[in-house]
């Protein structure tokens, strides 16, 4: 995810301090990976340098200065371009799991156990996400669904591979 573009997008609704930006980001997108303060401030410095945000005001207090950032016209254009650009589909062609299966077969170990253990681990996570969906709001449900569909795709690959293990074993040992 592009943190810079996401923070810029959050600024479109009005100027915010770095701390408010971090909180807004974590609330909406940081479920598993909340931002570090350092990431926010280094990103804002970069956006400032590139003319995508300006400092809208500074509050002096007992602690460090609190800068309030506002998005510029160039920043709004940058967000619009980012939103309109499709993400590159990731084919995962060199997945660790594929490598483990082939290596197991190459070295004469059974690959069934690897696939079974992985299925079990995937389903464990899918149960956790399903529970989280049940207790969460719509945003939680959507983010969990995204993860669930990807895990399900992995599992379909696992099942297909399990069904073709004998053939795969013959090919890799040839």
């Amino acid at each position, binding site marked *: 995810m592009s943190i810079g573009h996401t923070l810029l997008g959050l600024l479109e609704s009005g100027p915010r301090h770095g701390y408010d930006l971090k909180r807004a980001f974590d609330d909406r997108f940081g479920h598993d990976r909340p931002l570090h303060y350092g990431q926010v401030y280094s990103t804002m410095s970069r956006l400032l340098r590139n003319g995508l945000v300006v400092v809208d005001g500074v509050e002096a207090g007992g602690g460090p200065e609190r800068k309030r950032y506002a998005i510029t016209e160039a920043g709004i254009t940058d967000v619009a371009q980012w939103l309109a650009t499709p993400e590159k589909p990731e084919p995962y062609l060199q997945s660790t799991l594929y490598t483990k299966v082939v290596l197991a077969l190459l070295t004469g170990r059974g690959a069934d156990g690897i696939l079974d253990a992985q299925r079990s681990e*995937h*389903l464990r996570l*899918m*149960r956790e996400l*399903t529970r989280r969906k*049940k207790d969460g709001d719509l945003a939680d449900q959507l983010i969990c669904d995204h993860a*669930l569909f990807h895990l*399900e795709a992995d599992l379909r690959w696992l099942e297909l591979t*399990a069904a073709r293990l004998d053939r795969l074993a013959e090919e890799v040992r040839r």
Partner: protein
Amino acid sequence: MTSAPLLRATGLDKAYGPTPALAGADFSLRAGEVVAVMGPSGSGKSTLLHCLAGIVRPDAGTIAYDGRDLTALSDRERSSLRRTDFGFVFQFGQLVPELTCAENVALPLRLNGEKRRAAEARAVAWLARLEVDGVAAKRPGEISGGQGQRVAVARALVTAPRVIFADEPTGALDSLNGERVMSLLTEASRDTGAAVVLVTHEARVAAYSDREIVVRDGRVRDAEWAA
């Protein structure tokens, strides 16, 4: 979970003509747990469910349900057990088209001798629980697939069964409807303490279970059974 299994199958064999569907399958189910039965098409998942539910008699092996040997019961005894202790949900609802949805849900109670008014009152309460009380007076042909599956779930739960057998209960539904049916089925079964044997090839459906087993070539990998 540490309690003794409510349902336990050992060494089940079943063949249809020369084709083996089950070859030494083992399975266990504890009271109140939801177990997903997964595996590729033709692996023997549905045959296992039919054997466990007493619908099909295995060629070999034993099935112990609550201390009774299911394979030793007569057809009549197994039929009676299915009406009192088991509930069923299939892929296509299998509702009786001539009856209203309330009458469909009340049917197992009526077969068990309950009076019409009391049976239909309980049926309507279950339809409300499954969020489809609005279809009580409609016939199955007049409702959507998602509503039909909720009616089927209500029918499976109305007799307060100890085990619900669900064979691809969301197989004919879109993702949203399938999810809602699974959510309602598992919530209601947990509230009533019913165990669920859930046959599915969809991992997102299996994710509603407490644990999964995999059937492959008529055999089962069941870590709980081995424990």
